[in-house]
């Protein structure tokens, strides 16, 4: 029921506020790029290509444009499991970035979900807040 309510809310806001929503998305992407260049760029590189065998690429990655919670939790908690990403293994650990604010995490994730050949919905500060509480 809560989801239905949320859906109706989203649809209504889309119908009535399409232009402002688009502008908000663009602003989040712009802010996210600044965060990316400060925090992420040295490992994941300017083109999101990562470093072969070392740091995974963010390009067309289902880790990036997939489940929001998975992605948010990688930023909040870091990631050190050895898993294959498109058949390749990456050795460096992802450090937790929990020092960033909810807004910064939302912005940087929205930026990568809309860059490097990814196309996925925005992540909002309240999404981050929910994950951080757990």
């Amino acid at each position, binding site marked *: 029921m809560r989801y239905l309510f949320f859906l109706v809310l989203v649809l209504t806001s889309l119908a009535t506020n399409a232009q402002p929503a688009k502008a908000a998305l663009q602003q989040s992407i712009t802010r996210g790029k600044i965060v990316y260049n400060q925090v992420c760029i*040295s*490992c994941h590189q*300017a*083109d999101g290509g990562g*470093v072969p065998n070392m740091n995974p690429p963010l390009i067309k990655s289902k880790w990036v444009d997939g489940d929001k919670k998975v992605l948010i939790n990688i930023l909040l908690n870091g990631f050190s499991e050895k898993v294959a990403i498109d058949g390749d293994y990456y050795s460096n*650990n992802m450090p937790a970035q929990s*020092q960033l604010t909810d807004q910064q995490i939302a912005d940087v994730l929205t930026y990568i979900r809309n860059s490097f050949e990814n196309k996925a919905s925005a992540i909002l500060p309240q999404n981050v807040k929910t994950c951080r509480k757990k």
Partner: protein
Amino acid sequence: MKIIKPFACLFFVLIWLNAFAQTGSKSSIADGNNAGLILPKSFAAIKLADNIGKSRHIAVTPQGDIYVKQLVANGSKGILLLREEKGTGRAAIIKSFGDYGGTGIAIKNGYLYASSDVDIYRYKLDDKGIVIDPEHPEKIVNGLLERHEHESKSIVLDDDGYIYTNIGAYSNSCQERDRVKGSPGMKPCPILDSAGGIWRFKADLPNQTYANGTRYATGLRNVVGLDWNKTTNSLFVMMHGRDQLHDLFPQYYDEKQSAELPAETMYELHNGSNCGWPYMYYDQQKHQKILAPEYGGDGVKQGGENAQDPVAAFPGHLAPNGLLFYTGTMFPEKYRNGAFIAFHGSWNRAPEKQKGFLVAFVPLKNGKPSGDWEIFADNFAGTNDITSPRQAAHRPCGLAQGPDGALYVSDDVKGAIYKIIYTGK
């Protein structure tokens, strides 16, 4: 006819490609293209193989065959044996075996030694340098620490029956939380008990573990390139310096400083050597040991009072993955007993351009530099304009010397094997 047409087209394309391939391979010896490499005058290079898989370290037998350690086993192809087909400039894979990926490979006293990221194996060779029983190697060492970061195990042997392996620190600078901004450095660094150094084992004793080995040298963040220097009868290693000075300490380092610092360092090691990681790093511009910022440093304060000085220092982040002391006679006198270093190429210089992707040379006399280092072979990447490491076509990783004194270089992007010779012309 409609069906035949595409086939006919394909047929002619194949003939054309075949002709191209043949002229390509024949001319690769003579056409002066040097497989795309830039070399000093009177040297030539050929690409013996390409696309054989991510090729880490290599070892050449007295007969001139090439053992290649593959990063990924892909079934039972963890080690490839290549043989040069004389006069063609190409080498063919004549054997593949080993169900483990890894980095280290070496030949000593009639055995081939190879490592995964956890274990070291050896295989008896016949009098032609061919592995006799590829399915049943002896496990010499097992259970070495592997925690993803700096996991590769390089190996080298001395003349006294010992094998040495790098156990890289699973950390950048021994922070409580690796690479997390603001997380302090641990003192003493607990990683150093079981990693961050070189361990020594007996070369002929099966099933050794940490308990059988000696921590030969400590304070080494990560070593990939290492070699035994016969003129000094001692172990030399190339250390990968720490990353991310600007990311973690923007108050002390701007992006440019962070791209150049710290040095990649060459050390001569003896039993008990300490090279100072994580408490310090070496600044090649000031020629000083600097206190690491995780331990109270600010980019100026000196540190590493108990740590030894490097033999040579190179620009930051170039990633020295191969080290070879040249003992051959093919190359001119200048190269004798000097060091070739395969630089894998950087990733930690962003937003500056990435650098490296080359083989360097430093002349040495009795294990001490007798001149400045220089670029020996360049342009493995195919371009100087690398902003992201994946743009590099090839990345040098392993080095080996052939029986005639030729220099071999492996690449671990798609797997090329280069042979560099002196032509005198």
